[in-house]
């Protein structure tokens, strides 16, 4: 029954796919919810089921997306109870949400294996990266915990855990390290269906099914028990846990027989008579293994214990693994438990060794110390391993240490030794620096497949991304070689470096890690003989000092000629193969072309041919440069941030921006996660190849451009003409037109040249055309590079011009609102983002008194992901106070903020009132009755509060002391609850509904992209009918939830549906009304998104189309109208017209359906048309309803 090894394929996959491959084939029901870094496991499973792939029993597994991980766990529990072999995949907060069900599943001794890509739990900050804080928080649930340390193990253990749970009846949590394993691409041996069948005992599956609920054989499970019985019943499970390790051992042994790969519960690597040993689990084992083997080869008596089965913890198996010779042990935990005696694995090992000694199972009791490593995917390298082992050599090794960081606060970090290279010399280590949009990572993934699949080389790829969505930088770490690759850390010494973007040379030290004589490939937009002259001194120095072989190519030139636009990936990939010598060039090119067919075939033969041409042209255009023997450059790499940046930015932020955040010591960081606002302004990213240029002669000063700008990179100001004194010669201004009240002032529209991402939305929306040459508008796009300096100087002057404030504006329409200062600027959102214009507008209108609760998602990432953040302050130092709690709790989080504001306002008012006598009564009266309904009123109140603070300075007493910190609460606060549709429609809906059902004065802004954007386009209940999304691969068949209508049903909630690209005036009006409404307000904002599958330069056209067709009606539902005898609902868009079909065809999310199934698409078009009409009908009726007033109801008497 065992499969000969030769029949197994070698495949190049990442950890997620490796797990999905087994989980999908060995389960019947899969309930999922997207969360980084585990989302791809579910996506693979869903895609495979959609394709009809079957499990080992010949059935297509059912894959369902739930509304949260809590929901997924509930569905898993239910499916298990009803007898299906069931799984789920999750990480981090998702796993926490599953814990209640995990207790139940384990308590009921249910066979089940779930898979986790272990990820950091959010504490002082969110992190999407890997550590064991999530799985450690589930270690008490009764689930067995089996840990894999690399991609092959993730594949193998997924099966072993599934096999073991069926026998053990203890549910299993199989985990791998998020990103380091889940996202590492590696060459592994794929298990066949027969392997899976050999491991999964059908009798045990039948037994599992027999334990399921069935009316034909009814029983009750899930009783409530009392003090008399619960305890004993809880102890009844002990035999199962005692037997579980042996079951896993047995599964390991069967697996070894089948595949030849041997695993133990605790694997030992190292000197047979080791004296110093490290114990750890997870991917760190790779680096540790390399270091230990390296040191053993040098004669050191060191070793490594890799923990596989952490729960149930088997004392005997651990003892077996640990040589008797061991004198000291360092237990490394990839988690932190503040306030504990030590981290969990350390405590377990410590107790186990003490038990072993006391039970006489071991002669000696080694000294045990604990340490922390690798939190949030912090690098863990052979150097760190050696540092730990060195520490163990000391007579009094540190306990509770950390390794891999500099801790100058509590001095708990081990000193960092010299780097230790443990990689074999024959291995190729290549680094590629690219932009997300240039396709570098995709090409590298193909390169790994080419090398892994076509040669007997081992291959490994790991990809590092920055946290920006626009202009994201990617670094690919690729290793190839004859020996198995255990290097679970970034490349420290590179033989090959490719820089796909010339400007990176001015940002990073790309050549720092290059070995002497390495190969450096540079994409440079210059003739070959001029490239050297354009390099900064640092790059020239490295090339000369390290004797690098230096190759250049103008890849953008080649790509443009081939019709590929900015996609230079295949060109650079060809160059890599041509000069790296990994494969014979001809063979490599053939393989590249094969992958081009595979990758681009769907886009048509023309695209394939274009790429072929680019590959052929690449070799002709790549040239080796023989560098001079000396550095000739006169310029150095420019400073990362301006010298004018604040001290913190210089000291901390700039280091992170330079890519050296790892070097920052503990003291550099605020201990509670509090960071200064407004730091994006110091990061000049220069990612827009073209920027808008203003022609005041044509401009009508409508300011539509500034409203739609996603990055606040084009701005308008009005100011007194006298402010122009000292303006740069090129500075442009015009008289303010179209506003009687601002007559006589000057107007300037100015671009922030280094912050603009070049999305072109501003040009698209601009209505002002040159009458004799309509191609020329009031703003046109022009090359950024030649304009950078001049526009930069102008923008600096522009920023220093006086800023008009809301109180000085006659009204707040689109034109005037855009004269206000945006307090949300230069975020990392996608170029052309459809969400950020709304947020920016909110900050312009209310930012100086706003508190924002932000749900996790795109808006929390571009809103709060380091190194720099976009929320900023005005000249008074006021600006939005922003915080992110979780994904699921944002409405409640904001509600809590409102409660706190109310409470503190109430206290302040009471205290002010109590001070009558000490304060003038009329002053107190003015403070307490101030009309703060507009900007003038707010400003007047701010002045009163300033006066109050000044008066309090002269007063004394407990009330005065209490009032002092509360005085600011006498100025109204604007509480905003912001998040995406995944939050509002799905995971946070319960909370959202509860807050809507309250009388809290909160403003809820739902940025509706109709899909989970941040995690990669999974369907939500906001996903419209007919749209393709992950988990709705054939097009969603259920119509979008009408969240607005549900909210309206309360009657007391202000509700608006807006789309700034369709009717910007309505958007401004709705936000102002929502904010002014003294109860809960809900604004649902249409947000175009890259997940819709079209060039976002057309985002505004699509917004117009979605509104015109009636698919997205615009309205405002204002309960205040009832009192005036008016219908609360006002429709702001017209009856549906225009072609639904044309709208849908323009977006790949709909068009994909047509390409797959024309009839299905046609049916969706009809259904959407009907739905738009139905929706319109409902709204028209509602808009005609006038709610009777109490006094108009009449009485009998």
């Amino acid at each position: 029954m065992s499969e000969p090894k030769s029949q197994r394929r070698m495949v190049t996959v990442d950890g997620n796919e490796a797990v999905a491959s087994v989980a999908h084939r060995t389960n019947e029901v899969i309930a999922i919810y997207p969360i980084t870094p585990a989302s791809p496991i579910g996506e693979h499973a869903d895609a495979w089921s959609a394709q009809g792939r079957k499990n080992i029993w010949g059935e297509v597994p059912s894959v369902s997306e739930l509304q949260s991980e809590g929901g997924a766990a509930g569905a898993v529990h239910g499916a298990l109870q009803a007898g299906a072999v069931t799984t789920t995949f999750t990480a981090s907060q998702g796993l926490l949400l599953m814990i209640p069900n995990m207790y139940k599943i384990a308590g009921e001794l249910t066979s089940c294996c779930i898979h986790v890509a272990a990820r950091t739990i959010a504490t002082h900050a969110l992190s999407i990266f890997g550590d064991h804080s999530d799985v450690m928080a589930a270690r008490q649930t009764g689930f067995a915990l089996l840990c894999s340390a690399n991609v092959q193990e993730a594949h193998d253990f997924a099966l072993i855990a599934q096999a073991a749970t069926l026998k053990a009846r203890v549910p299993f949590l199989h985990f791998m390290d998020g990103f380091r394993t889940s996202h590492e691409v590696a060459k592994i041996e794929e298990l066949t269906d027969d392997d899976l069948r050999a491991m999964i005992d059908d009798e045990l599956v039948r037994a599992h099914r027999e334990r399921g609920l069935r009316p034909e054989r009814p029983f009750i499970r899930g009783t409530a028990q009392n003090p008399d019985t619960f305890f004993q019943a809880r102890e009844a499970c002990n035999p199962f846990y005692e037997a579980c390790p042996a079951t896993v051992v047995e599964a390991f042994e069967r697996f070894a027989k089948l595949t030849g790969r041997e695993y133990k519960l605790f694997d030992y690597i190292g000197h047979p008579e080791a004296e110093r040993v490290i114990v750890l689990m997870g991917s760190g084992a790779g680096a540790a293994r390399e270091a230990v083997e390296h040191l053993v080869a040098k004669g050191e008596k060191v070793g490594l214990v890799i923990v596989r089965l952490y729960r149930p913890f088997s004392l005997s198996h651990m003892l077996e693994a640990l040589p008797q010779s061991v004198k000291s042990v360092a237990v490394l935990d990839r988690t932190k438990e503040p306030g504990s005696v030590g981290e969990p694995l350390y405590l377990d090992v410590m107790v186990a060794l003490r038990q072993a000694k006391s039970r006489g199972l071991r002669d000696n009791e080694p000294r045990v110390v604990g340490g922390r490593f690798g939190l949030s995917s912090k690098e863990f390298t052979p150097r760190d391993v050696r540092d730990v082992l060195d520490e163990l050599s000391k007579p009094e090794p540190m306990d509770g240490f950390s390794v891999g960081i500099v801790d100058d606060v509590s001095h708990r970090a081990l000193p960092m030794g010299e780097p230790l290279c443990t990689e074999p010399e024959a291995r190729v280590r290549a680094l590629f620096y690219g932009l997300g949009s240039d396709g570098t990572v995709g090409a590298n993934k193909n390169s790994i497949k080419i090398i892994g699949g076509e040669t007997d080389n081992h291959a490994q790829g790991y990809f590092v991304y920055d946290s920006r969505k626009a202009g994201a930088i990617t670094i690919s770490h690729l290793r190839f070689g004859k020996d198995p690759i255990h290097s679970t850390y970034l490349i420290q010494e590179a033989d090959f470096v490719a820089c796909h973007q010339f400007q990176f040379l001015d940002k990073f030290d790309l050549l720092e890690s290059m070995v002497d004589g390495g190969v450096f490939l540079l994409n440079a937009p210059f003739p070959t003989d001029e490239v050297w002259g354009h390099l900064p001194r640092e790059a020239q120095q490295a090339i000369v000092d390290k004797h690098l072989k230096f190759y250049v190519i103008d890849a953008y030139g080649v790509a443009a000629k081939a019709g590929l636009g900015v996609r230079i990936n295949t060109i650079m990939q060809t160059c890599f193969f041509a000069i790296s010598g990994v494969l014979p060039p001809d063979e490599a090119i053939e393989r590249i072309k094969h992958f081009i067919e595979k990758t681009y075939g769907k886009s048509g033969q023309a695209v394939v041919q274009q790429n072929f041409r680019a590959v052929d042209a690449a070799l002709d255009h790549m040239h080796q440069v023989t560098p001079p023997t000396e550095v000739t450059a006169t310029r150095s790499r420019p400073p990362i941030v301006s010298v004018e940046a604040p001290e913190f930015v210089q000291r901390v932020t700039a280091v992170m921006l330079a890519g050296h955040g790892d070097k920052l010591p503990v003291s550099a960081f605020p201990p509670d996660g509090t960071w200064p606002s407004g730091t994006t302004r110091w990061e000049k990213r220069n990612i827009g190849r073209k920027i808008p240029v203003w022609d005041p002669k044509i401009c009508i000063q409508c300011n539509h451009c500034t409203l739609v700008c996603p990055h606040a990179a084009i701005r308008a100001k009005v100011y007194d003409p006298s402010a122009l004194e000292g303006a740069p010669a090129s500075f442009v201004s015009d008289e303010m037109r179209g506003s009687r009240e601002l007559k006589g002032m000057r107007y300037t529209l100015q671009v922030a040249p280094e912050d603009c991402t070049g999305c072109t939305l501003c040009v698209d929306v601009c209505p002002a055309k040159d009458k004799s040459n309509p191609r020329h508008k009031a703003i046109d796009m022009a090359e950024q590079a030649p304009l950078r300096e001049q526009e930069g100087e102008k923008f600096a002057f522009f920023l220093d011009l006086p800023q008009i404030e809301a109180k000085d504006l006659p009204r707040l329409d689109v034109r005037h609102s855009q004269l206000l200062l945006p307090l949300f600027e230069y975020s990392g959102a996608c170029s052309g983002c459809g969400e950020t214009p709304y947020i920016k507008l909110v900050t312009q209108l209310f930012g100086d008194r706003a508190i924002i609760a932000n749900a996790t998602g795109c808006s929390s990432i571009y809103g709060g992901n380091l190194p720099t953040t976009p929320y900023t302050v005005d000249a008074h130092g006021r600006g939005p106070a922003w915080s992110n709690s979780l994904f699921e709790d944002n409405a409640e989080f904001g509600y809590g903020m409102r409660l706190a504001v109310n409470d503190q306002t109430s206290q302040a008012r009471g205290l002010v009132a109590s001070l009558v006598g000490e304060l003038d009564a009329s002053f107190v009266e003015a403070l307490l009755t101030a009309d703060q309904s507009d900007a003038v009123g707010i400003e007047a109140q701010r002045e009163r509060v300033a006066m109050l603070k000044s008066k309090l300075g002269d007063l004394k007493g407990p009330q005065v002391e209490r009032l002092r910190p509360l005085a600011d609460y006498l100025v109204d606060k604007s509480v905003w609850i912001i998040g995406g549709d995944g939050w509002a429609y799905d995971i946070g809906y319960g909370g959202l509904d509860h807050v809507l059902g309250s009388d809290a004065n909160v403003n809820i802004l739902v940025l509706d992209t109709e899909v989970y954007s941040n995690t990669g386009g999974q369907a939500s209940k906001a996903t419209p009918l007919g749209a393709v999304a992950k988990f709705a691969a054939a097009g969603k068949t259920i119509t979008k939830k009408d969240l607005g209508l549900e909210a309206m049903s309360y009657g007391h909630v202000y509700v608006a549906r807006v789309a700034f690209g369709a009717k910007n005036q309505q958007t401004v009006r709705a936000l102002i009304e929502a904010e002014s409404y003294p109860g809960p307000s809900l604004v649902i904002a249409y947000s175009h998104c890259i997940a819709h599958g079209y060039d976002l330069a057309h985002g505004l056209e699509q917004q117009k189309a979605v509104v015109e067709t009636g698919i997205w009606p615009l309205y405002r539902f204002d309960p205040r109208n009832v009192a005036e005898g008016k219908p609360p609902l006002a429709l702001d868009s017209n009856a549906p017209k225009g072609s639904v079909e044309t709208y849908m065809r323009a977006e790949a999310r709909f068009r994909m359906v047509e390409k797959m199934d024309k009839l299905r698409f046609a049916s969706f078009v009809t259904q959407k048309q009907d739905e738009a009409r139905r929706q319109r009908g409902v709204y028209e009726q509602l808009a005609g309803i006038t709610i009777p007033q109490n006094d108009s109801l009449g009485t009998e008497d």
Partner: protein
Amino acid sequence: MDLSTTYLGIELPHPLVSGAGPLSDSLDDLKRLEDAGAAAVVLRSLFEEQLTGEGMAALHAIQDHNNSFAEATSYLPTVEEFAFGPEEYLEHLRRSAEALEIPVIASLNGTTPGGWLDFAKQLAAAGAAAIELNLYHLPTDPRLHAVDLESAMLALVRQVKAAVTVPIAVKLSPYFSALASFAEGLEEVGADGLVLFNRFYQPDIGPERLELDSSLHLSDRSELLLRLQWLGILSSQRTLSLACSGGVHEVEDALKAIMSGAHSVQMVSALLKAGPAHLTKIRDGLSQWLTEHEYESLAQARGSMNLLRCPDPAAFTRGNYMHIVGTARRFLS
């Protein structure tokens, strides 16, 4: 009345064919056309440029964002069946050819030599009874000489002919400086027929917003005269099949086309305006007219008014122009 005709070597019961247009987009409409008695249908053109353009646009819109951000390596699902290629068109052609009794003619507008050839082969394989090569090309490039353009077109038709066995019609624009010579060339390289003429979609201007409006305008009867003139000239010179396309709305229009030498008459705008049943009306009207005027068959009328046979051949050429101009002068004076 015997209305039968042979077009591209295909025997048709009568010359009325539904031309390339929106009515051929759905199988339902195609069936309605068949029920209305259409002798054949021509599907709307497969535009290589459009396919490529959409493929590239989709590639950029979808793939430019892939592998850019740690939380999401892609933003749309990977769907095996989803591809920007001719599959959608081919599938429609395949289903139409299977479902209809009448010949289904495919139409193709290529941009690259490879595209023309590959797509033509695929169209033939998918069941096209014939292929109409739609040489729609607006030569805006001042460096492109007429002779080079024509040579390239001839070479292309020759290659396609060599690659497929189904008959090939070439749909032309009227804007050739030496159309008669070019038609001869086309016949020499093996074209089985010519379709006169393509209608360029000339954009309109929106003065208010200073934008171009490229919405489709339907043909009217005034467009027929240009067709009649060239049908009359070419049918007197060439033996390949001729189709009239553009401006046929009523019985009389179809009759004139036949008399000018057309083997088939394509209708699009009239059917869009009046529905497929209009085709029945024209066919019956044609039959009735020929009967009333004691023709033996439609064939008897074909080409009766072409350059070779019409009573006043000078009217076809410069004289016609002069005459009208002269008439106009008389009015003016």
